[in-house]
């Protein structure tokens, strides 16, 4: 399956957002996730399925002004 991950094409086997995070070895407590432009809370990642062409974004803390 081909998704857009943080703005670039990404091939994955993960069927849920949670599995994608695991696959990519993100610390689940330190990242936030969005699917097709909408925030997906941590507790919904496991029940949020991925389909071909989805836009996934994974964010982490950074410096800010």
């Amino acid at each position, binding site marked *: 399956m081909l998704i857009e991950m943080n703005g670039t094409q990404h091939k994955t086997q993960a069927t849920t957002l949670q599995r994608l995070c695991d696959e990519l070895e993100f610390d689940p407590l330190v*990242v*936030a996730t969005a699917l097709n432009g909408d925030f997906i809370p*941590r507790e919904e990642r496991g029940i949020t399925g991925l389909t071909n062409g989805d836009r996934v974004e994974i964010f982490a*803390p*950074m410096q800010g*002004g």
Partner: protein
Amino acid sequence: MLELYGRQLESRLMLGTAQYPSPDLLSQAVRRSGAQIVTVSLRRESAGTKSGHAFWTLIQDLNVNVLPNTAGCQTARDAVNTAKMAREVFSTNWIKLEVIGDEASLQPDPFGLVEAAKTLAADGFEVFPYMTEDLVLADRLLQAGCRVLMPWGAPIGTGRGLNNVLGLSMLRTHFPEVPLVVDAGIGAPSHAAKAMELGYDAVLINTAVAKAANPAAMADAFGKAVEAGRLGFEAGLMPKQDTAQPSTPVFGAPFSPFG
């Protein structure tokens, strides 16, 4: 003492965490400034880099309040989504709401701000809107549920200080009870002191500290400037005079014709 959304704060300086030469200099700057609130942000994390993790650990070690921003957002929708993600990651209801309406000036978008503020306040957020000095916008944001306002001093990163002193003064006069924080554009300690002398409750600084030759010393400078300005405001500033007045009494001065 300053109170923002129910939290008591001794320091009236808020510090941004971006653009420092190194994480260590950031930590030093926050510590020397005495700031009890720092702003942070979110960005796309590359798989496996964990740079976000390291940054977050560093911030947590500072033992300060964290104020996430929605920097870079150009629509209310993006800002609201970013705010929700920030709440989850940083475990706080506080959000510095930025909705940028013009990329060149980074001017806040009054329309997007009100829309986002309504949504966020209704969702339990405690919103710190980064805004212009517009009085009507201020009123709308308060109606939307904001209990702190953050007007700009000057466009972000310019270091020009208080670009519209009259406008900022009118805002202060108009809303005497609302905590007002000057955010953006402050370039020198004297600018921060001036904001406090106008009666502002706090200032938020980033570039001027982070880009200083010596960020930690500059952070110290801003900490003292904010205290100085606040003390001056509370101690009662003299009004400007149009004509000179001798400080040393003239009467009885040596050889004075006044005797």
